[in-house]
């Protein structure tokens, strides 16, 4: 259907009393179809009410235009009736008089009796016939809001604008009114725009939810389509599979905005000390056994040893938090899945190439594929057997969990599935789930299995919910796990800090690799600051030392933290990951892949760090990349390799344009 309301490149600037100006909204673009219900959500002061007022015409944009059915909105009018948060009833007029005031003014052409019947009809519509002669002061908040709704509907607006309509009501009244409003809107096909703070309200009522970023210069941070079918019932929508993912999407967005605001307010002062450009670092990590080097560097003082006095670790629950933290600039550096630097650099994140570099591979291995216990009982212990099972259970939707498109888990899981003849997009569905949530989802039987870092494979096995069907050994022994990632501009601005960070983490890795320290590290990791889990779920040593009553298939992934050829970033490996991400359409394969690899892998920084630590003997491993299926990878011909693979998407090859690297001002 054609566009009903169009908000076209709106800017809104308010002059400030002390001179200067405040940019409330910047470049807002929104199209609303007829009959659609759109919610605007965001933090206080993000300009959502301002936007609503501009659609209403109560306020005019500084730049850009708003149109209703192609007509530019220049002033308010009864065709765009507003329902205000505080009802805006006139306290000296009764319910009937309040509605009649609107009806008489707008429908002045109709006869008196007609107008009277319109008023009566709408009083009855909201179920207030018993209170029509009462003054607003004698009504409860919910009744007042019903009067306001009746007044708005009575004049048959083309567009209904609601400014936090239920904000001041108690939960029960709010619920009832939401359903009433929904019914009325559906019945009369009313186009509505609602401003709200309430995430559940937005999901319940809307067809689309527009999320606004924090001001100043708020813009649309994202638009969610709500695919829950109508008519909706308040108690039933929560059972719809999309409900919680939509809800958590909005909450994630709002939390993210809050953090960005906090960072802005903090005005991060750069503290330079000990010849380092910046010693106050925020370092992001996700609680996994693989975060051991980060935790050890903090707890055992390796950061301080190398002059980084003020490192604070920021625990993120998902890799997406790391991506947003690096992009938003509130994380200096982060533990990243191995594929993330190339993924960010080639624009994997919403087609916005963000040059990111890595100078250290922190861990290798440590991942496993877990399938639900029921498969073990049915004798499914290989991908091929799983495929048989999938064929047998035709028609059902099978979901597997992974943690991030750019992580080794995704790449390995897809590779494992594809090698077993399963198309990871068509035969099953891969869903991004935060690592810590995997076991819960497996338990709830919403996923068949997952690929994730430890301790989540071991834990599922020990709790009897699943079993490890493949670990690093079975897929790619010694594959890169987590790397240290920073933005390229950050690395250029703080080169010495970058080296110090690599040194601290490299030393921490050496500490982790020493079996003497394993018990201590397990204790550190199990503590509340890191994984907050039981110690027995965290295993660091040789898998063979560990026994469990679930016989052969309960091996856990073997982490490698330090050693010859382990830590130096390898271009070949990043190239392989790039081909895999291109294979599944996560990124286009960059025609300028050589340039990108040169920029992503900061081998120089690593070499400087290892030389300064006098680890000159750390060799670079040159063994070729070969996975369990035996297909060799030729680093000279990645495109040929891609073409050679069996199951894959139609990958694209494109030039990825990056800004020229910024160099440090002398």
């Amino acid at each position: 259907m054609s566009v009903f309301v169009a908000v076209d490149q709106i800017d809104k600037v308010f002059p400030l009393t002390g001179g200067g100006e405040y940019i409330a909204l910047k470049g807002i673009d929104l199209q609303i179809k007829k009959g659609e219900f759109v919610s605007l959500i965001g933090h206080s002061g993000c300009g959502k009410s301002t936007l609503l007022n501009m659609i209403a015409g109560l306020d005019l944009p500084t730049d850009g235009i708003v149109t209703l059915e192609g007509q530019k909105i220049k002033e308010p009018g009864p065709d765009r009736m507003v329902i205000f948060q505080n009802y805006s009833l006139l306290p000296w007029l009764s319910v009937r008089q309040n509605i009649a005031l609107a009806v008489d003014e707008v429908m002045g052409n109709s006869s008196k009796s007609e107008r009277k019947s319109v008023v009566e009809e709408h009083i009855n519509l909201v179920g207030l016939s018993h209170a029509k002669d009462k003054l607003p002061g004698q009504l409860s908040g919910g009744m007042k809001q019903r009067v306001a709704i009746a007044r708005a509907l009575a004049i048959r607006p083309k567009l209904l604008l609601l400014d936090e309509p239920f904000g001041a009501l108690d939960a029960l009244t709010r619920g009832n009114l939401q359903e009433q409003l929904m019914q009325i809107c559906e019945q009369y096909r009313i186009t509505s725009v609602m401003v709200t703070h309430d995430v559940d309200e937005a999901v319940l009522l809307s067809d689309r939810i527009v999320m606004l970023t924090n001001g100043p210069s708020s813009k649309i941070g994202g638009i969610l389509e709500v695919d829950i079918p109508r008519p909706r019932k308040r108690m039933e929508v929560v059972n719809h599979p999309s409900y919680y993912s939509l809800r958590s999407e909005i909450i994630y967005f709002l939390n993210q905005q809050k953090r960005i605001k906090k960072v802005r307010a903090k005005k991060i002062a750069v503290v330079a000390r000990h010849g380092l450009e910046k010693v106050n670092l925020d370092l992001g990590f996700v609680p996994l056994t693989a975060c051991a080097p980060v935790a050890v560097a903090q707890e055992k003082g390796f950061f301080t040893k190398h002059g980084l006095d003020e490192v604070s670790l920021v625990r993120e629950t998902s890799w997406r938090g790391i991506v947003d933290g690096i992009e938003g600039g509130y994380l200096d550096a982060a533990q990243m899945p191995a594929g993330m630097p190339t993924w960010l650099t080639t624009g994997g994140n919403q087609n916005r190439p963000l040059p990111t570099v890595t100078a250290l591979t922190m861990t290798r291995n440590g991942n496993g594929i877990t399938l639900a216990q029921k498969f073990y009982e049915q004798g499914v212990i290989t991908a091929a057997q799983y495929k048989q099972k999938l064929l047998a259970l035709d028609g059902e939707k099978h979901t597997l969990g992974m943690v991030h498109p750019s992580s080794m888990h995704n790449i390995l899981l897809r590779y494992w599935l594809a090698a077993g003849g399963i198309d990871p997009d068509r035969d099953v569905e891969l869903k991004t789930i935060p690592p810590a949530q995997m076991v819960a989802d497996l338990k709830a039987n919403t996923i068949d299995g997952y690929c994730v870092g430890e301790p989540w494979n071991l834990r599922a096995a020990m709790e009897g919910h699943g079993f490890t069907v493949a670990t690093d050994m079975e897929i790619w022994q010694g594959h890169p796990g987590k790397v240290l990632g920073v933005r390229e501009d950050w690395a250029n601005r703080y080169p010495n800090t970058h080296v110090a960070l690599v040194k601290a983490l490299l030393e921490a890795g050496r500490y982790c690799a020493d079996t003497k320290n394993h018990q201590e590290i397990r204790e550190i990791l199990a503590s509340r600051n890191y994984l907050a889990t039981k110690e027995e779920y965290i295993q660091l040593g040789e898998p063979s030392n560990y026994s469990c009553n679930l016989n052969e298939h309960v091996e856990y992934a073997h982490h490698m933290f330090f050693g010859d050829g382990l830590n130096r970033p390898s271009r070949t490996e990043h190239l392989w990951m790039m081909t895999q991400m291109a294979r599944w359409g996560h990124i286009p394969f960059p025609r300028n892949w050589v340039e990108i690899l040169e920029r992503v892998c900061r081998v120089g920084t690593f070499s400087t760090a290892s030389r300064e630590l006098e680890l000159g003997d750390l060799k670079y491993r040159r063994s070729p990349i070969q996975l369990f299926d035996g297909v060799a990878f030729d680093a000279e011909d990645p495109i040929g390799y891609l073409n050679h693979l069996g199951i894959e998407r139609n990958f694209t090859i494109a030039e990825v344009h990056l800004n020229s690297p910024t160099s440090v001002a002398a």
Partner: protein
Amino acid sequence: MAVSTPRINKRKNNNAIASFWQKNKHNILPPIIGILGFLIVWEVVAMLPGMRLPGPSSLWTDERTRNLLLYPFYDRGGLDKGLFWQTMASLGRVAQGYSLAAIVGISIGILVGLNPLIDKALDPIFQFLRMVAPLAWVPIALVALQKNQPAAIFVIFITSVWPILINTTEGVKQIPQDYLNVKRVLKLSNKKFFFKILFPSALPYIFTGLRIGIGLSWLAIIAAEIVMSGIVGIGFFIWDAYQQNYISEIILAVIYIGAVGLILDRSIAYIQKLIAPQS
């Protein structure tokens, strides 16, 4: 049975009074004790040697005041009139000056409140004139209007118009944005806006102004009459008594003035309750 019924009723009645007393004695007793205490202290102080101010009992013991107290309605022509007529004369002036002030104050107040430009232009003048004491207006009024009567009314007017005007302006400016939004969204006509929104919304402010105004005008008339000699009115009555050293007459007149002021204030409050109950 038939005999006992009235007795029960009577007892009930007694009970009602008793329970009313029980309930309200905390509200009734303290002011009575306070007033009595004040009068006793006054009486004692008045008996101190060298004190020329008579005590409250002199209102009755002094023959002139007793007569004034007993015969408020006598009229021997000229200035020699009972206190009722003196008060009525003053009230009459207040009524004229105050009505004028109310009409002018409310209309200009609405005009100024609706129009920020006029507000900016006139506000300094208002604030300046508001500060001029009523007595300072008397000579100007006498010079300008030549006669006592219109001059007195003018003084009342000029004293009480400012609170009415300024409060009305404020009331109009303070119309909640929500109501203005209702007007804008519904595109209400000016007439409807005035009667359905502006006036009811500003009414509480207007009444606040009216109440302050009535108090001020009553203050002003006394002051004005004291200065404008030779007219019937309670202000001049006091001045006359002072000139002739009838101190207890002054005290009696002051009691009249206080009582009338209180009644005026309460009447406006009562009218406000009738017209604008929700505020």
